[in-house]
């Protein structure tokens, strides 16, 4: 056996990018420590991003959302060379992750070190061909770029163009079959389209959609209730404003798209009296970021300008419709990967239920086809706040 070289290796540097926590890491609350580290890092970089949802943190299936990205956080110890990924801890159905972030935690020195991030596509390529157990291991070195790559991604990439893990073949065989069938259908459709001309293939018709001007009221004493400025709101649609200056919006879908097209807004979602989601700077469409609304839920949206500290806000109360109240995921599931079906469904709803149409258009399940992507881009352009 070889000699001892212990002294040299008794010490390690805390990496420059490590985020030192103010409080000790509690046993079993590693995810909370990671979110705190992200919060500190967002603050240090002076970014206006919120992290949500902050409920059910103990649930390993739960992904977080920052700047409209769905992110899976994986944690491991600071000295780990490999990380074990359990198949039943990956969420595919509602908000499948687009980015997978590896956080290494030192619970003795209370810091979090983000080893790196992978896009869902990069992650899929690393999944072994055969998984014998209900987990597989990845070397921590596979995760690239540390916290810096992560922040560059969420600041610069457009989430609409980043695939989510749901589309992975190795991890989701059922989905794979569905995908295969969809490929065949798509192939046939494409073939027919070539033979018969492209008129059969519809395009989303969203030209009629415009943003709505909604008043922002002062909450300061003295000029309380005074309309200070307007914000541009694409969805939800405001039906009326009460004497208490609360806007009401009837919704027919359980996960309505929130789309404020005025820049620098802070959004709070309050469900049954508790804040369930908070985001500092939102711009553009946000898929419903928390659990779907149920009939009887009291949901209030509070929108404030993020660059003005106090004194202004718009309140919107969402009222689930008594007539029809649809489950967005169920509709999406029924449309499968058929682009034409999606487009027809969107077009059918544009005039009757704008919220549903746009919630479908921006659904994470919507096909990432050229037509859908173009439609999204056009809509964003047309509804810009003027």
């Amino acid at each position, binding site marked *: 056996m070889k000699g001892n070289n212990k002294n040299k290796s008794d010490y390690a540097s805390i990496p420059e990018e490590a985020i030192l926590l103010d409080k000790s890491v509690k046993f079993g609350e590693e995810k909370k420590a990671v979110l705190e580290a992200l919060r500190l890092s967002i603050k240090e970089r002076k970014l206006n991003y919120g992290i949500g949802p902050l409920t059910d943190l103990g649930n390993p299936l739960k992904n977080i959302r920052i700047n409209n990205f769905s992110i899976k956080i994986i944690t491991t110890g600071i000295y*780990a060379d490999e990380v074990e990924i359990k198949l039943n801890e990956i969420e595919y159905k509602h908000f499948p992750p687009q980015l997978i972030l590896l956080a290494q935690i030192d619970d003795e020195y209370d*810091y979090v070190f983000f080893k790196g991030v992978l896009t869902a596509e990069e992650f899929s390529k690393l999944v072994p061909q055969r998984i014998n157990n209900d987990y597989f291991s990845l070397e921590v070195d596979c995760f690239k770029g540390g916290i810096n790559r992560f922040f560059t991604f969420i600041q610069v990439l457009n989430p609409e163009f980043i695939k989510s893990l749901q589309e992975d073949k190795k991890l989701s065989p059922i989905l794979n079959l569905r995908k295969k069938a969809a490929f065949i259908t798509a192939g046939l459709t494409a073939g027919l389209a070539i033979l018969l001309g492209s008129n059969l293939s519809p395009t989303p018709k969203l030209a009629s959609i415009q943003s709505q001007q909604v008043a922002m009221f002062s909450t300061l004493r003295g000029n309380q209730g005074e309309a200070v400025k307007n914000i541009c709101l694409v969805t939800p649609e405001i039906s009326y404003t009460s004497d208490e200056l609360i806007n009401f919006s009837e919704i027919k879908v359980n996960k309505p798209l929130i789309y404020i097209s005025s820049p620098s807004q802070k959004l709070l979602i309050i469900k049954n009296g508790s804040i369930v989601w908070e985001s500092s700077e939102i711009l553009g469409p946000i898929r419903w970021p928390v659990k779907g609304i149920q009939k009887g839920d009291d949901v209030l949206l509070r929108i404030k300008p993020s660059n003005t500290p106090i004194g202004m806000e718009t309140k919107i109360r969402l009222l689930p419709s008594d007539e029809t109240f649809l489950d967005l995921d169920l509709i999406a599931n029924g449309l499968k990967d058929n682009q034409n079906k999606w487009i027809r469904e969107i077009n059918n709803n544009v005039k009757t239920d704008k919220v549903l149409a746009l919630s479908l258009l921006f659904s994470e399940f919507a096909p990432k086809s050229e037509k859908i992507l173009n439609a999204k881009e056009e809509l964003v352009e047309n509804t810009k706040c003027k």
Partner: protein
Amino acid sequence: MNTSYSYLYFCEFPGKKISPKNIKSAAEYLKNLNINYEKPTRDSDKEIYKLIASDKLNCDPLLCLRCRVSKSIYNQCEEVYKNNDEKIDLFDLSRRALIDDGRKNYRFRDDSGKIQKYLINFSFLEKNLQNIKMPIFLEIIKTFDYKRSNLNTWTKRIFRGDSEIRNYMREFDIKFIKTWAKLADTSSKRIKNSLIHYGINKDFLDDMICLHQSYKSKYREAKKIYYAKNNTQQGWEPSEEFLRSLHPPQENENNLLLMEEALNYSFLPKIESLDDENFNEKIKDIEFSQDVNENELKIKSLIETIKKSSTELIKEVLNKDKKKWMKDEERKKCWLLYSKGMSQREIAKKCNHKQGWVSKLIRENFLGELIANDVLISLKNKKEFANISKIPEELDYIKDLIKNQILSLEQITNRSFLMQIVEEELNK
């Protein structure tokens, strides 16, 4: 006569030095009992410890052991310093650890805020004082178990687990590697490879792998229990009960320590800046000038944006730091020297500070990162860079390019773009 049990190492603040002082009552105690050791050994530590325990109200035998512990603590400080002299100061560390001044009384405030005063003898150590954090020198003696280890090893263990020391080290980005966490985090595959590489024979190897797997599976549960009891994750050590519960059962920590030794032999952990690593590897392939010919428009637009973002950010950083220059002129000097192209090591020497101070003041890599992101955000709306918001690989590539432009040293001037911007801003 050996002075290990009668000289106390302590910090002299006026001269900022650490020196041993003679503790008369300890020396007299030893003289009266006719005790004279050639050098301190495990047996002598044990003998003194037994004297303390048998004469519970007498402070003098405990003083003898306090002297011995002070030397041990000092050795620990020296060792940490020798291995990290570029980052920390020996006196600064020692003054946190060598806090025993040789007094026979220990004073502290109780929960109601009243000052309590106790004679430091064995009887005091036996008291189970709730909510009172013992000073490190007393913690070492109180918890010392001569059956498990010698006093030096025990001191090392307590020293490394002490929150004050840990927080100080953390401030300078250094830490002690925790054997137990390391073994729990390491994959069995790596342990196996390390043991083979280390020369463990095949018959023993299977047992060791089995032991490691068993250790990994029981570690978390043991920490959970420890946390429930102590409300902290820090300082967990395998108890005898834990060692016996392993498969195969262990009488001591030796086999686990052997695993760590094998790991250290094959793998010296060196957690470096990820950026440096990425940067150096990737940037070799990227020649900025190549692209100039390929896409002049793209490059021109890029350079303009980099210049704008860098200037804005550096202006903001310097304006914030300027507020501290009245009190600490070295900070200004540090920025100046940086703008002239000096390395952090050179700046540290000129400013009479540790290198860690410089790197904390001028967070070059972080600044480069912020500028690069700012540039990328501006670029993504330009037609010629539209792909960076859609294709992650393209984004990685352009970001490397930008950081290279900001941080790498130019061959002729031997200064980076960032250094030049700092100079421009300082001259304004």
